């Protein structure tokens, strides 16, 4: 898995966010403040522009740039959360030009840790955690079972989608939706929806193709 593939993943994610921008904002308007789509779209457009301007050579440089851009352009809850996610994934991969699937899986788990450090959310709080944690678990499980990265990312994407859907019946305990108490039940969480797009982008990118089965030893 190369740094270039990571760049492709980020761009694909930006495209998906742009396509689903209004849907994300509509979800946020039901249980939040109707800005999640525009927040993430503004941030990812800026991130892609930053990559275009000065293409980073290492995985850490690339993902740090994405993370820092999100942190400094998005604001609200999703800026620090998604920003930290990218920063931690990049930090875990390090100043390299390629990594193994296991390293990618470990990096995503580090990213999940960053989201938890930042937001203190756990399972069932009806947040992006509820899509991200099952995806990271699914990725690990598939790789342990010997699946190649492309298949493992498919599994992770499906797990994220299932996690996203599972947020609908939950009562929010974190973020703006928690002010609604019981009235938050019955609505899909916008941040979890964005995480599902992030994993969909990973599964559809060249991440799995280029790195499948290869180990840098």
């Amino acid at each position, binding site marked *: 898995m190369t740094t270039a593939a990571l760049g492709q993943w980020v761009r694909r994610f930006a495209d998906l966010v742009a396509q689903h921008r209004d849907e994300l904002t509509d979800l946020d308007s039901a249980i939040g403040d109707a800005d999640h789509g525009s927040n993430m779209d503004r941030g990812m457009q800026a991130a892609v522009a930053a990559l275009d301007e000065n293409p980073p050579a290492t995985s850490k440089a690339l993902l740090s740039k994405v993370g820092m851009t999100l942190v400094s352009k998005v*604001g609200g809850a999703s800026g620090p959360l998604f920003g930290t996610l990218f920063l931690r994934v990049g930090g875990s991969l390090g100043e390299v030009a390629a990594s193994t699937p296991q390293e990618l899986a470990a990096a995503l788990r580090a990213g999940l840790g960053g989201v938890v450090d930042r937001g203190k959310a756990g399972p069932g709080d009806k947040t992006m955690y509820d899509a991200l944690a099952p995806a990271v678990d699914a990725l690990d499980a598939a790789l342990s079972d010997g699946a190649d990265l492309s298949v493992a990312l498919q599994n992770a994407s499906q797990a994220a989608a299932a996690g996203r859907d599972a947020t609908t019946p939950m009562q929010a305990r974190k*973020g703006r939706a*928690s002010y609604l108490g019981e009235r938050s039940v019955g609505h899909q969480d916008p941040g979890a929806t964005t995480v599902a797009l992030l994993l969909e982008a990973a599964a559809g990118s060249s991440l799995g193709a280029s790195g499948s089965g290869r180990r840098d030893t």
Partner: protein
Amino acid sequence: MKKLINDPDDVVVDALKGIEAAHPALKVDHEHRIVYRADAPHTDKVGIISGGGSGHEPLHGGFVGLGMLDAACAGEIFTSPVPDPILAATKLVDGGRGVLHVVKNYTGDVMNFEMAAELAAAETGGRIASVVTNDDVAVQDSTYTAGRRGVGVTVLLEKIAGAAAEQGRDLDAVADVARRVNANGRSMGVALTSCTVPAVGRPTFELGEGDMELGVGIHGEPGRERLPLAPAREIAAMLVEPVLADLPFRSGDAVIAFVNGLGGTPLIELYVLFHEVATILRGRRIDIARSLVGSFITSLDMAGASVTLVRADDELLSLWDAPVSTSALRWGI
């Protein structure tokens, strides 16, 4: 949408230019959208900054000045500022004795201030303490949730902590006083109309001609319940009773009583409400030691009001009475 603005996207930028033009004691960093004391930093005192989404004016920029804040970061309307300007403000006011961050308890605000504090610690090594206000009893508190929102107490806390800093107390002591204000303060609000976010152009929520939203948040977040509009006497009870019950406040307590307008409600109505609040407190033998009536933490053009009570001992009262010189709150100097 009827507003005295230019482009809806320029409201915050334009208002900061107005603040700069109106108040020579303040400076504005337009790039970072920071309002700060023209004489910052002060080497003889702890710096205090706050910030958050705009649309709550005079909070926070109106509270920058001697005896209160050293700087305030203005985010977009109802959107927390990102870490960069918070970091910049932190550096701007750090005269060597550390900086207190006053943060309202919203997930975005808490996380952005936290990141800024981490960056500042890494970059400058300066000491930073944070106090998070969470006084809105309309939201159920719990360690398992995001908890209560920070509302009216923020104003009183900034005043009192500002006075403690001005006395030369150290960072821990200033943060302690601030936490004590928050721990002893509770608020609740009611909306008679929705606010309208300029960039959206239509009301955030629909509220029938005969209805009010009890327990509303300062961003137009839904409240506890929607009820038929009631006389001020009944509304006062609906606001004060949950506030009294939550701490709880007790007979004999002395309080700072703060009746706050949400932006579209004129002062005459706030005084009508204050009278009713005072009547209830008198009946409960709670002593209004100090009072504040006016629109100090608003929600754009929302019609409505909030009631904040802070239980105050002699120390907090003397800090409240200490001189303050800001554009929105001024006495003793």
